[in-house]
């Protein structure tokens, strides 16, 4: 029996590596982060401490946390698997995720940091009518967080069967509940500070692990990229080196990819959990440094996944990967096992769980901040929530969202809902980004424009997805039995993103109400100079 046969046999019996070792390494991660979270949370007193970590992180720290927040299990396991199986098209996907950061760097990060306080809505409602705009921004924030969260929790179930050898429904549900409960604990106790440390530690482990595996794979191929590509092509066929294996099947699939590319490149700068991270640093300059660090780390990581994906294709082969439990997602863990045996697999598995934990924690604190700061304090309590009231509501919201995530995560086990991540990006690009850009750069932009753009962008993206092939009409749909689909693409971005921009413009030019020019002037001066921006809290 050669090594591939051993892996195949191991994969079929669903026990690759040693589940107890995998759990122990993850347990050690939980223990270490928990101690750090508890120590970090001693100073959590005010809303600025709880939502924005007292604005006390440095640019490099925050940039690492951003990488930890952004590199979800989908981008680690998913992109490695996509490159291993579909070759070049998986790589194409990762480029959109990286280039998108330039929008955040050039247009959004510093101006947002200078103008806002805790949430995206702070900036959007700065010079427009407070309550309707805040409510709309909170709605799109909660929608994006919900879609993203559900996708992460569904991923957790798949990981459990792959890494812990637990295949029955009850066992998987228990693990999802444990991951959810841990997340609630971190966010409840640690607030943004705790969440940030979990993300920093996870990012360091993930990038270091990927780096070691990358060097290893390259060493096996004489540090020659061409040789690695040749090895991948000799196993998976010449077409893995060329574009089109996944997206080039038909004209429709090509258009679908262009639509996805649009959502990826414009969505990142509108993701509320990414935007919120800019408030954890003391100045706009540090916000800029954060993005620079994030771009280098994320860029390096995606270069690693290129090597890892082709490495998995060459050393393990697409057939073994697709037939393993977890399917496409098993490429990186199988490669870890092939290279470093059960110990490296245990490490990578623990990192994958830590990834889900860190990303879910970031989404939860963003959703909780948006609900308590925008909906409760500003809309319901009209800006006077009373001392401590806002943070109390935020903590309650964390528990509610955590429980919803657990129930949702158990409910969607085995469902094909990978499209939710793409939907989250599409909503961020169609509902959030137009209003952010218009608020920061167009003085005439009005309340009506903001509302039309946000509700129109959100509504069109969700409706188009609901009537597309991913929800009904084919065997791989979420609801396979029925067919009410009429939208031919799987990604709504190509329609909904231009629509969001057009509605924002149309709402503004048809609006007779003029916004206060004095406040517009104040926002412009503050956004560019940092005058009056929230400072770090000192303890």
């Amino acid at each position, binding site marked *: 029996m050669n090594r591939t046969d051993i892996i195949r046999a191991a994969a079929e019996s669903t026990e690759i590596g040693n589940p107890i070792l995998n759990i122990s390494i993850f347990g050690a991660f939980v223990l270490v982060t928990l101690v750090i979270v508890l120590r970090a949370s001693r100073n959590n007193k005010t809303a600025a401490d709880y939502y924005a970590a007292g604005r006390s992180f440095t640019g490099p720290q925050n940039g690492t946390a951003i990488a930890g927040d952004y590199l979800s299990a989908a981008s680690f396991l998913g992109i490695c698997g996509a490159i291993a199986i579909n070759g*070049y098209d998986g*790589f*194409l996907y990762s*480029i*959109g995720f*990286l*280039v998108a*950061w*330039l*929008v955040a*760097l*050039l*247009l959004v990060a*510093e101006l947002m940091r200078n*103008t*806002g*306080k805790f949430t995206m809505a*702070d*900036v959007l409602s*700065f010079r427009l009518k*407070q309550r309707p705009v805040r409510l709309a921004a909170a709605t799109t924030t909660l929608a994006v967080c919900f879609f993203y969260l559900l996708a992460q929790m569904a991923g957790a179930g798949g990981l459990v069967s792959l890494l812990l050898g637990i295949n029955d429904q009850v066992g998987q549900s228990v693990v999802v509940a444990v991951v959810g409960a841990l997340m609630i604990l971190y966010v409840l106790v640690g607030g943004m500070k705790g969440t940030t440390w979990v993300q920093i530690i996870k990012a360091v482990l993930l990038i270091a692990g990927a780096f070691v595996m990358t060097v290893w794979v390259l060493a096996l191929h004489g540090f020659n*990229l*061409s*040789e690695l*590509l*040749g090895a991948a092509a000799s196993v998976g066929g010449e077409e893995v*080196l*060329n*574009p*089109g294996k996944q*997206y*080039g099947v038909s004209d429709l699939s*090509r258009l679908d*990819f*262009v639509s996805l*590319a649009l959502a990826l*490149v414009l969505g990142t700068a509108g993701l509320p959990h990414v935007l919120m991270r800019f408030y954890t640093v003391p100045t706009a*300059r540090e916000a*800029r440094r954060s*993005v*620079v660090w994030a*771009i*280098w780390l994320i*860029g390096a990581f*995606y270069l690693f996944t290129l090597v890892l994906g082709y490495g998995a294709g060459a050393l393990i082969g697409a057939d073994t990967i697709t037939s393993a439990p977890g399917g496409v997602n098993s490429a990186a863990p199988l490669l870890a096992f092939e290279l470093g045996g059960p110990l490296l697999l245990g490490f990578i598995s623990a990192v994958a769980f830590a990834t889900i934990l860190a990303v879910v924690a970031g989404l939860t604190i963003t959703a909780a901040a948006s609900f308590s700061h925008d909906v409760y304090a*500003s809309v319901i309590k*009209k*800006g006077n929530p009373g001392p401590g009231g806002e943070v109390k509501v935020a903590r309650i919201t964390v528990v509610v969202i955590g429980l919803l995530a657990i129930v949702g995560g158990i409910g969607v086990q085995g469902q094909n809902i990978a499209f939710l991540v793409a939907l989250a990006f599409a909503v961020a690009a169609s509902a959030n980004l137009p209003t952010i850009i218009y608020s920061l750069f167009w003085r005439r932009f009005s309340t009506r424009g903001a509302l039309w753009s946000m509700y129109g962008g959100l509504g069109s993206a969700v409706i188009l997805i609901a009537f597309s092939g991913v929800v009904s009409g084919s065997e791989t749909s979420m609801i396979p039995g029925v067919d009410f689909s009429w939208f031919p693409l799987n990604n709504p971005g190509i329609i909904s993103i231009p629509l969001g921009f057009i509605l924002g413009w149309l709402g503004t030019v048809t609006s007779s109400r003029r916004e206060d*020019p*004095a*406040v517009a*002037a*104040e926002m*412009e*001066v503050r956004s*560019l*100079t*940092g*005058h*009056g921006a929230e400072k770090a809290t000192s303890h």
Partner: protein
Amino acid sequence: MSNDARSAPLTDFAEVEASEPFRRLKKRHRSFVWPLTIAFLIWYFAYVLLASYAPDFMSTKVWGNINVGLLLGLGQFVSTFAITTWYVSFANRQLDPLAAEIRADLEAREGVAR
């Protein structure tokens, strides 16, 4: 209803906005970020469209198993890193000192007003 993110209006911001240093800062910022944004978006979509609609061109071998598509893809990484570095050095040299000057001036004036 007040916006808690807004400070009390001690300053006439319209006057600051119309002042020469601020207009200079705004022009410098916008005339740098917008052309660059448009340029990298065109470059990115040119790449995406080539990969989608010109796979034969992208599959042309350049050296060993390295083809045009891989080189252009890695080119996206290089351009992203280069734009990042360029913007940071521009902002550090051209934007930050001017912004700090205007901010100091504003704070001094507000100090007098109080």
